[in-house]
C-alpha cells in the first residue's frame, strides 16, 4: 500500500513526465512546501502549498480535466488549470504558435488527453502494487471555482505547481482502496 506522501510524488513525477515529454513545459513544485496530512490513516489529504506560494491559485474561468479509475484502488484524478493556461498547453501539444486561433473543442480535447496520459503514467508507476486498475475515458468541464469530491472514506492528494514558472496548475488525486 502506498502512503500519501509517496503518492504525491507519484502524481507529480507522472505529470512531470507528460508535460516535459509532450507539452514541452516544466513543472515546478513549491521548493519549501511542507505537506500537511490530516484525517485518519485512510482518509486524509495532502496539500503541497506554502505561505510563499499564495499566488499559486487558479482564478477566473478554468478547465477541469478528470478521469476515474477502478480496481484495487478506485477514485479520480483531476487536473485544474486556468483557461489561458489550458490554451497554452493545447497549443504546445499541437505545435501551434501562441497567436494562432484554437477552437475550444480542441482545448478540451487536449486537456482530456493530458488527464489520460498523466493517469496512465500514474498507473504504470503503481501497477506493481495495484495490479488491476482500469481507467475511464477522460472528461473536461469549464467553469469557475470548481471542486471535486468522491463521497466518504476518500483520501486526497493535492499537488499544486507552476507551469514554466508562470501558470498555476493543480493535480488532485482522490482515492480509496477497494474493500477486499
Amino acid at each position, binding site marked *: 500500500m502506498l502512503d500519501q506522501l509517496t503518492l504525491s510524488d507519484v502524481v507529480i513525477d507522472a505529470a512531470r513526465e507528460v508535460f516535459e515529454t509532450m507539452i514541452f513545459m516544466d513543472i515546478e513544485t513549491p521548493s519549501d512546501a511542507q505537506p500537511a496530512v490530516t484525517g485518519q490513516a485512510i482518509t486524509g489529504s495532502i496539500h503541497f502549498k506554502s505561505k510563499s506560494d499564495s499566488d499559486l491559485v487558479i482564478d477566473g474561468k478554468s478547465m477541469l480535466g478528470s478521469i476515474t479509475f477502478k480496481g484495487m484502488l478506485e477514485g479520480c484524478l483531476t487536473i485544474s488549470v486556468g483557461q489561458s493556461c489550458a490554451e497554452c498547453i493545447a497549443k504546445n501539444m499541437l505545435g501551434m504558435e501562441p497567436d494562432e486561433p484554437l477552437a475550444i473543442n480542441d482545448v478540451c480535447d487536449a486537456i482530456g488527453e493530458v488527464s489520460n*496520459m498523466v493517469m*496512465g503514467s500514474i498507473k504504470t508507476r503503481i501497477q506493481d502494487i495495484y495490479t488491476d486498475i482500469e481507467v475511464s475515458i477522460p472528461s473536461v468541464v469549464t467553469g469557475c471555482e470548481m471542486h471535486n469530491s468522491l463521497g466518504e472514506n476518500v483520501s486526497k492528494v493535492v499537488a499544486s505547481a507552476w507551469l514554466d514558472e508562470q501558470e498555476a496548475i493543480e493535480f488532485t488525486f482522490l482515492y480509496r482502496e477497494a474493500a477486499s
Partner: protein
Amino acid sequence: MAKSLMIVDDSATMRKIIMRTVRMSGLEFDRTEEAGNGKEALDKLQGDPVDIVLCDINMPEMSGSEMVKEARKLDCCKETKIVMVSTESGQDMIDGLMADGANGYITKPFTPEKFQEKLTPLMN
C-alpha cells in the same frame, strides 16, 4: 520506398499530435489517413489498405484490441503492420495484443525518437 500510414484515435487532437510527432521523427509517408475508431479504420482499410497503422486502444464503438483481431481476418490487412499507441502499459495486455496480431507497442507519453525506434524496422 515511401509508405502509407493510418492513425486511429478517437481524439482528433491526439491524431494531430501523433502526426506531428511522426513528422518530427523524420519518417516519411506518401499518404496518411485518419480514423476515429476501430470500425471506421477497418472500413477505410478495406477500401484502401495502408502499410502501417498507429492505433489507440480505448475507443468508442470498436476498441483497438478488437480492431487488431478483425484486421487479421482480412486479406487486405495481411501485410499491414499495426502498432498500438496507448497509455495502457500492463505487460499482460501488451502480450495479449501482440498474440492477437499487433506488431508493436508505443506507450504515451511518447517522443519522436520512440516512433523512429519502433517504426523503422517495420518500414524496411
